[in-house]
């Protein structure tokens, strides 16, 4: 299973802290997020991706503690037992 964790405004939008989905062969982060939206039936990808499907610079997406910005971004492969976290950090001080 893939564990997906939701934080801050994403958690509030989806009204849950985490969800587990079975792993699919040859799936990447972008495909996993599309599958997640279909599963939970709550539109949320507009908070993460722009019209071209690229990440909006406001929410970090981590796979096993690593920001996908340093991996292969939305093409980062996902495997069984991976932990994916979606977190929009607060910028102010």
């Amino acid at each position, binding site marked *: 299973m893939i564990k997906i964790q939701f934080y801050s405004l994403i958690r509030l939008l989806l009204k849950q802290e985490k969800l587990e989905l079975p792993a699919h062969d040859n799936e990447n982060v972008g495909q996993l997020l599309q599958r997640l939206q279909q599963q939970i039936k709550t539109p949320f990808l507009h908070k993460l991706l722009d019209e071209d499907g690229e990440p909006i610079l406001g929410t970090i997406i*981590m796979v096993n503690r690593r920001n996908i910005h340093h991996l292969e971004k939305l093409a980062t492969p996902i495997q069984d037992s991976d932990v994916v976290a979606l*977190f929009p*950090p*607060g910028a102010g001080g």
Partner: protein
Amino acid sequence: MSATKRYNRQILHWGDERQQQLGAATVLVAGIGGLGATVSELLTRAGIGKLYLADDGRIDWPDLNRQLLYNESDIGHPKLGIARQRLQQINSNVKVELLPQRINHSFQIPADISIIADCLDNFTSRFDLEAALATGSFLIHGGIEGNQGQVLTLQKGKSQLLAEIFAGTQQPAGEIPVTGAGATLLASYIVNEVINTIFGQPQLLNRLLIISLSDLHLSFLEV
């Protein structure tokens, strides 16, 4: 006034030895705004040995809803001068050094600092601050936006960099919403973690604490 009397209520909580550890500690507070003003005040009241304050801003009306060190009569004045004056009125035993400069790529951190509270209001300055840290230094990061905030401790050279964790994060356009209650609450978490770090027991090392004021929810994200 003896330290035993002055700090009696907290010595009852953490003991004499830890009070002495606090009195020997030096902390840099970067950004003396919504988070940093309260962080500075609480560390001063707690009896920190020495504080460095870094900021280049002037006090303005929108600051007064949350920046507890400043009053109406301070409008237009540089923050650091007023902050030092108020902090020394609160506790004249604390040494307060000023770094009145913008935190950018040329920022240098004095050699006697190993604990830094990131109370800045933008990611670019945060990443520049982190780049200036000596290996082994502890960075306690705080950030807030609306009803959401986070606190995280990183150790330079052992932890991931803040710039890696928050890579690609873009500063929101325009002013960031922040309330007095939200900023003060986040500042208290930062101070608690700074003191834990001084005592050698950081609780948020490589562990983001994410605080939601809207439904009073706390969660953690390992990084």
